[in-house]
């Protein structure tokens, strides 16, 4: 390898630090830049992006639409970061070409930026379906999109969201949370069909319905037409829904034009190997624009794992780092709807061991898909105390306990609430002074007749004091038992 790792230059007594150019400053690109800078204070870094904004957290955009986050709360880096960390930020200057011969990127303003290593973090762009009047709708992808949506939502009386995938559901829930009536129109037969099975999609639809989102599945939008000051969304079959805000959330596709034009191998995304390297060894690609082992990921976690691998490689701090794919967990961010979906959720009993619990009225649906004693998929809809544990079992591929019900209902097995008089003699009542129930009972048998006397003799309750109720309970139980015995003896006397 002629250029990597970069700090090889330094060991050979280089005079100039190597040059890293990053194209794209979204969640992947900005992560890479911070990871590289944290590992190597000297490498020269230039980051370019077409938009002037500092990087922001796309995961939180649905919060912005919902009004639970303000736009300034989603910045990933504060704008002063670049200067403080000696990173050249060319934000607002789009890169238009890569000259691989001279290892130079060319920007829209004609400037040329030489690189030793180039990382493409171009992200993805929204899919605009071929619907007549699609231009009347607002995509839901960027912070600018969010601001457009919010501006229209302020005066709108009805919104339509087209697309019932993860983002569409979040957008619809967010708008409904602002008090705006929303109709969510989805082509497939159930919501989030990539992550959910049919029943989960149904339960999710009902939950959304209660939160003010009318759900229309199996519905094809044929046109968005102007209708007075607003629009009209027409469906196949002739029905139409009036809307003065139409949001498009019909999926995304990787941005690959720059790579394709430079002659890099592109399939659905820019093809990379386990080092996230394209077929040009000086060029890496990470995030939603790349395709690794046939998979294009649309989530942040894999992109950040990729950024860490590339940062380790190009700084030489982890030359054996490799990316081997990610387990993905989809977590819906919508107020009042807890939903996690991971792995192979749509398998049935024919293909795997399935554990399921559903309670539609409560908005609860839990499904575990198990193979070889490992969790390979799960859907958790509705508040679930097990969500953290199950996510970790899935992430680690750890063996599952035999008690499958306990996985869905943690704490069920551990519930034991014995009354004070049922506490066994061997049980410790006062931990601070190691006093068992048996010793308290023995103390009673030896003549102590109230709590103070028991405390004086055993020191129970003299530490943290939290066992006082138990001590009193045991003493009161003994007193009641003795009284009962006396009563019985009295009754027995006349006989």
């Amino acid at each position: 390898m002629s250029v990597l790792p970069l700090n090889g230059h330094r060991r050979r007594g280089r005079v100039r630090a190597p040059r890293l150019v990053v194209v794209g400053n979204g969640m992947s690109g900005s992560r890479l830049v911070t990871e590289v800078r944290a590992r190597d204070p000297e490498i020269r870094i230039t980051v370019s992006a077409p938009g002037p904004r500092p990087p922001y957290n796309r995961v939180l955009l649905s919060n912005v639409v919902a009004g639970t986050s303000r736009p300034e709360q989603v910045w990933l880096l504060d704008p002063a970061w670049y200067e403080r960390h000696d990173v050249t930020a060319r934000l607002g200057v789009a890169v238009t070409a890569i000259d691989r011969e001279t290892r130079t990127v060319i920007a829209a303003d004609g400037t040329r930026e030489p690189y030793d290593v180039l990382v493409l973090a171009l992200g993805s762009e929204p899919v605009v379906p071929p619907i007549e009047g699609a231009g009347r709708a607002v995509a839901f992808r960027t912070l600018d999109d969010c601001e457009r949506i919010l501006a229209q939502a302020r005066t709108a009386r009805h919104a339509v969201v087209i697309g019932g995938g993860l983002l569409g559901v979040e957008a619809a829930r967010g708008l409904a949370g602002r008090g705006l009536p929303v109709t969510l129109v989805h082509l497939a037969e159930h919501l989030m069909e990539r992550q959910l099975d049919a029943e989960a999609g149904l339960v999710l639809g009902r939950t959304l319905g209660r939160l003010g989102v009318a759900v229309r599945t199996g519905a094809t939008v044929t046109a968005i037409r102007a209708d007075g000051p607003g629009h009209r969304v027409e469906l196949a079959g002739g029905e139409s829904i009036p809307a003065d805000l139409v949001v498009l959330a019909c999926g995304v596709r990787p941005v690959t034009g720059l790579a394709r034009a430079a002659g890099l191998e592109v399939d659905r995304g820019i093809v990379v190997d386990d080092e996230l390297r394209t077929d040009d060894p000086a060029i890496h690609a990470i995030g939603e624009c790349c395709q690794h082992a046939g998979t294009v990921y649309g989530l942040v976690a894999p992109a950040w794992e990729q950024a860490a691998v590339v940062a380790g490689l190009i700084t030489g701090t982890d030359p054996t780092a490799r990316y081997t794919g990610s387990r993905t967990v989809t977590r819906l961010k919508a107020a009042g709807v807890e939903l996690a979906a991971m792995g192979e959720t749509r398998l049935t009993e024919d293909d795997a061991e399935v554990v399921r619990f559903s309670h539609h009225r409560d908005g609860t649906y839990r499904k575990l898909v198990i193979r070889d004693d490992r969790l390979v998929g799960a859907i958790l809809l509705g508040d679930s105390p097990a969500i953290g544990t199950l996510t970790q079992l899935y992430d680690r591929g750890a063996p599952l306990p035999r008690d499958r019900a306990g996985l869905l209902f943690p704490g069920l097995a551990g519930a034991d609430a014995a009354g004070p008089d049922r506490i066994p003699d061997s049980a410790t009542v006062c931990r601070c002074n190691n006093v068992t129930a048996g010793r308290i009972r023995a103390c009673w048998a030896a003549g102590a007749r109230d709590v103070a006397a028991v405390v004086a003799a055993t020191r129970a309750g003299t530490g943290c004091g939290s066992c006082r109720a138990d001590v009193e309970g045991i003493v009161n139980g003994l007193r009641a038992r003795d009284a009962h015995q006396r009563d019985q003896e009295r009754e027995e006397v006349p006989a």
Partner: protein
Amino acid sequence: MKPPISTIGPMPMASPTPTGPVMTQTSPGTPTHCPYCALQCGMRLTAAGTGAGGRPVLTVTPRTDVPANGGGLCQKGWTAAELLTAPDRLTTPLLRERRDAPLRPAEWDEALDFAAARIRRIQAEHGADAVAVFGGGGLTNEKAYLLGKFARVALRTGQIDYNGRFCMSSAAAAANRAFGLDRGLPFPVTDVARADAILLVGGNLAETMPPFVRHLAAMRRAGGRLIVVDPRRTPTAAQADLHLQITPGTDLALALGLLHIAIAEDLIDTEYIERRTTGFAAVRASVSAWWPERAERVTGIPVARMRETVRTLAAARNAMILTARGAEQHAKGTDTATAFINLALALGLPGRPGSGYGCVTGQGNGQGGREHGQKADQLPGYRRLGDPAARAHVARVWGIDPDDLPGPGRSAYELLEALGTPQGPRAMLLFGSNPVVSAPRAGLVADRIAALDLLVVTDLVPSETAALADVVFPATQWAEETGTLTNLEGRVLLRRRAVPPPLGVRGDLAVISGLARRLGQDPAAFPEDPRAVFDELRRASAGGPADYSGITYERIEAEGGVFWPCPSEDHPGTPRPFLDRFATPDGRARFVPVDHRAPAEDIDERYPVYLTTGRVLAQYQSGAQTRRIAALNEAAPEAYVEIHPDLAERLGIAPGERVRVTSRRGTAEGVARISTAIRSDTVFMPFHWAGDARANLLTNPALDPTSRMPEFKVCAVRVERVPGAAA
């Protein structure tokens, strides 16, 4: 709003014997404090006849006039006096001229002469730094101070550190960074009862300092809510309104997620942030990357529980965030404590009466012990050894040239790891510590100690480390000597002598003084009298962050303790130091951006289970004291391994069976305790036992880059049944 509660009401007290009278404040006897943890419960010692060898027997009764315990004591406190008559108590110096010879009794002069001569020879051959000093967080302020002075003036070595590095160092570093001052609780412990919500991170107070729970219980009785973060449902977590059963080693991610929620839900105190802090913008941007669903995946804590936590804290009129060793004993402990401080600052808690951030100090003098110079980088009064003004001040008090003060030396684990190596110390003087049991990677530490040319140990009992020594000095213990300690609140307290020591036993100060004299020092510069040492400590600390100059034994007696800083005798002391300003140059608290990282050693196929370590109620630290008390041994007789039933089932382990736990560093054994109180991916071992039962044979000495704290609280292990062994 709840009415202020100044103290916790007294509990009915146990009498020393089942039929004895209940003690009152006017009772005879010596009022003093417990020898164990940082709560420093008030107790009274009364003579009750004569025991074996003609030694006076003392009985213990709790004091109601000490707010920290308000009349409560745990079993360790009640039985504390039994250690005074421990059957194997050291009562004569011990000595061996050769490493392969057994220790033999020796006269004091002989032993001191021998040790001093060996020290002189080693330093002559290998330089001043060839002799190291290792102290302890249980030593009084006077001892900690004189030990630091002894190292720098008499030995002129930079190689001094202490076991408090393993306790408080992460929280101390974080507090210094944020507030400019490290006082564990910057408020009286009784403020706890006035809070409306408390987040306790990695603390098991119901076992480690049981009477503290009275304050928590009083808070809950008045409607306050307790939230506990712990991988185990400990007796403390079991009393909580909300228990966050976190994945070991991920507290930092939790703190970042909580702050993210606080910002996203607009629950932060922007007016406070504006007025009293700096650096929020960078922290706000840094937690943008920790949306709650991401934190959930790392920590295992459901998002809904995180939101409940933040909302509870934000809705409280008074709220506190407390951290303890569970959060701090990590290779990222400083950043974890910082992240919780950031959360507290964002919610506007520190420096507000009734609210705040605090670290729950562990060892008896864990607070005072970290202030007066037994730490590698530190001079008395919490001054920094690297600060020229601090060096000049202390050198003046000590009557030496500032240039003769050595620079900072190695931190505790690095010091232990270097012993007997070509670059490391050849001799070590050890006071109030038992690192063969309590240090991480204890097997290696024992090997390093064995490689020394000279080990000098001062202790009450033949501890596991003392057994390896060339010279052992028998030391007085708490009821046989007088001295000050600074409790978890920063309140300076006085322990008083109640009985004379056994014949042949002398104080640590006498050992230091005797060695100093033999090393050519003026005896007046190394007095044996604790009051004389304290008066010098007052002068040395004057003007420093931990200023004791206005504190006298008389004031402590009259006022029931004095809170530092106390810069003059007419100064009332400082119960709540941050009310008006923080101890930073601009008076504002500093937000510091930090990021999460994985444990230094994560689980994998070979070591698939997390190990976390901790304490049980009836034992204390390395067990050198408590394992010698019958009632405590009966309550907690042996090491155990707490295992979830799911894990036990998979491993074929039944309750009571002997199990073997193996990490990359060693193997330890204990009895299986099957319990749903622990996560199914984690086992727990208490660390109080010696030999094969040492949990610290397993622990990971990966160090925090700032505090040099080892990663006691998480490492990767394999667990298996010991073949052929039955319960």
